[in-house]
């Protein structure tokens, strides 16, 4: 197989497969959450303060209201990072063609210039976030290998994609860069449902702790009886 065959394979079946893994993996999270909420909370779901819950979740789309002392720089960087990783992969002209071919979805594209700027911003944001994790003692104390690894894994498709599109900054051949770009993105797809990146869908279920404060009636007694017998004492 020539390198072009590899690229075609990565663009075609491999893309479809890894993308499917991501979508199904995320769907699985949603189904588990929704079904356990329905069986666990039942009727109590109806009386939940949905408006407040949704308003609160939406308020994080542009988190200005939440930028308090000590969180401002992080919030701005993280915001740019998220904008980049959502917009560029979805709306870049070359991707639009792929969506069309593979999934039959027709989306409007953003201009190349804008896409380039966004990509560079995203790369810069990733480097800053990585810097926080490496040099910020507080963040370092909280980070494990996977937290660094994921940032690098997100950096790869952006950096390689940019290099593939700009011959003047590309140290390798176009083919090698393109293949790196495709494969790293596909690895990322597979990682999404199994790592913290699953917050793409789970962030909403994280936010509804208000529902989880509605404890299950009778559960406390059952726990006590199971552990200490029927005559359980305080």
């Amino acid at each position, binding site marked *: 197989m020539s390198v072009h065959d590899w690229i075609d394979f990565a663009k075609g079946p491999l893309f479809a497969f890894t993308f499917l893994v991501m979508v199904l993996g995320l769907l699985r999270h949603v189904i*588990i959450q929704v079904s356990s909420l329905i069986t666990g909370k039942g009727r109590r779901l109806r009386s939940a303060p949905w408006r407040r819950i949704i308003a609160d*979740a939406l308020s994080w789309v542009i988190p200005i209201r939440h930028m308090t002392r000590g969180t401002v720089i992080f919030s701005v960087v993280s915001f740019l990072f998220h904008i980049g990783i959502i917009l560029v992969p979805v709306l870049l002209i070359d991707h639009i063609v792929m969506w069309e071919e593979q999934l039959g979805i027709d989306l409007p594209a953003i201009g190349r210039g804008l896409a380039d700027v966004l990509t560079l911003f995203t790369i810069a944001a990733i480097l800053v976030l990585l810097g926080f994790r490496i040099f910020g003692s507080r963040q370092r104390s909280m*980070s494990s290998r996977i937290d660094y690894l994921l940032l690098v894994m997100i950096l790869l498709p952006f950096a390689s994609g940019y290099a593939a599109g700009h011959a003047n900054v590309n140290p390798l051949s176009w083919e090698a860069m393109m293949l790196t770009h495709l494969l790293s993105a596909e690895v990322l797809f597979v990682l999404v449902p199994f790592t913290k990146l699953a917050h793409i869908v789970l962030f909403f279920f994280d936010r509804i702790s208000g529902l989880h404060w509605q404890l299950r009636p009778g559960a*406390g007694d059952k*726990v*006590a009886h199971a552990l200490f017998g029927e005559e359980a004492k*305080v």
Partner: protein
Amino acid sequence: MPETPEITAATQRTLQGQRLKYYIENEPAGDRVDQFLRAFAAVLEFSDYRPLLDSYCTSSAKCNRCAVSCPVYLATGDPRDIPCYRTNLLLDIYRRYFTIGGAVEARFSRSFELTDDVIDDMLEVFYRCTACRRCTRSCPMGVDHGLITRLGRYALSLIGIVPKALQVSVREQLEGDTHNTSKVPKEALMNTLEFLSEELEDILGVTMTFPVDQTDRDYVFYCAVSDYLMEPETLMGNAAVLYAAGDWDKWTIGTGNYDGINYGLFYSDWHLENIIKRLVAEVTRLRGRNVLIGECGHASRSAHDFVPVFGGKEAYPVVSFIEYTLDCIRKKRITLNPDIITERVTYHDPCNIARSGWIVEQPRDILRSFVKNFVDMVPHGQENYCCGGGGGLVSVDEIHDFRMEIGGRVKAEQLQKVHADIVIAPCANCKKQLKELVEYYELPCKVMGLHDLILKAIEIPGAKSPAERAEEAALLAV
């Protein structure tokens, strides 16, 4: 004695070493790891925490944004006080021992293992956190550290690890003779009510006999039972409002249960539910129509949020006294004289009713209606800082130094900056902690309940006017 509560890098360094230790009645004997896992398994089996834990386990970003919102972390700068650090202790256990992914991972790699050291760590950090939930508002994922802290405490309590002060109180409330946390027998309650009547007669010049065990009333009244011993002014303020509004024959205190305290909210689903059930049973016995909760943050939240959950057919509406008073003012059923309170007054939001509740503007509306010089702390409302005694910590005497030096330090700093003469805190727990803070840091302000202040300004038909009362009080003070 510290000069100032201000937090500097140097104070942080000295505070980092300060441990939190509380008395435990019966230290668990034998293998604590095994016992803990069994207890946690039982909780997971019968309650429905799993979906939330699954979600947190997978998606917590470890971004650290929550750290700077926590008053404990701000005081110490210790990584162990980062909200996400503590939450991850429990999540790691859940992931490793109660999910398939964790089990598989453990097979193939050296993964997390629950040890005695981890139990010791949890034993401390779950009580360094007051479960105030401030950090939840700054977490982009919305991870509810208050809920996790509480769950961790719950599992620990099932193997016997719980501050003795809390356990003894709950035992008395659920299994003791007096059925209340302060062991106030019925006779003592009656004596106190008589004393309050006499005091009210002295102050106001009208006779009010407290209604006890009256049936078919609109409101059955619950306050933190400790108020009967320690906060007579608050109770007299409550009584004055009911009397002035013409509702004196619409409420009652029940002698079967007169304690609104529910420490179950702080550490145990088991106790939380049974205390709620006892509370509604008394309302049913008296054929009351509403639960009226006095000035207490956690009592208000536990009744308001959990009577509907655990009350079943007896899920009576729960009214907080603050809402009741504001309603009386709005409907012009009571009048507060705006010329009596001249001091500079600020308001401390109890976390349980502000951030985790529904009471933020109501008390401010009340205060602004009769206090000329009202000022808010920065930040306040749902962004307020916990007093440092939340989550039941204020009842644990042996951690006084921790509460002063660490837990309440940011609050003390806030109090110092606001320059108020009076800080209003409508909560038995907050009041106790704030009084201790004011004394510890020698802050020039007085801590009071909301209705203590109302008592001074309320106009009561046929009684002495507020101005007369103020004059008399001034004379007495001399």
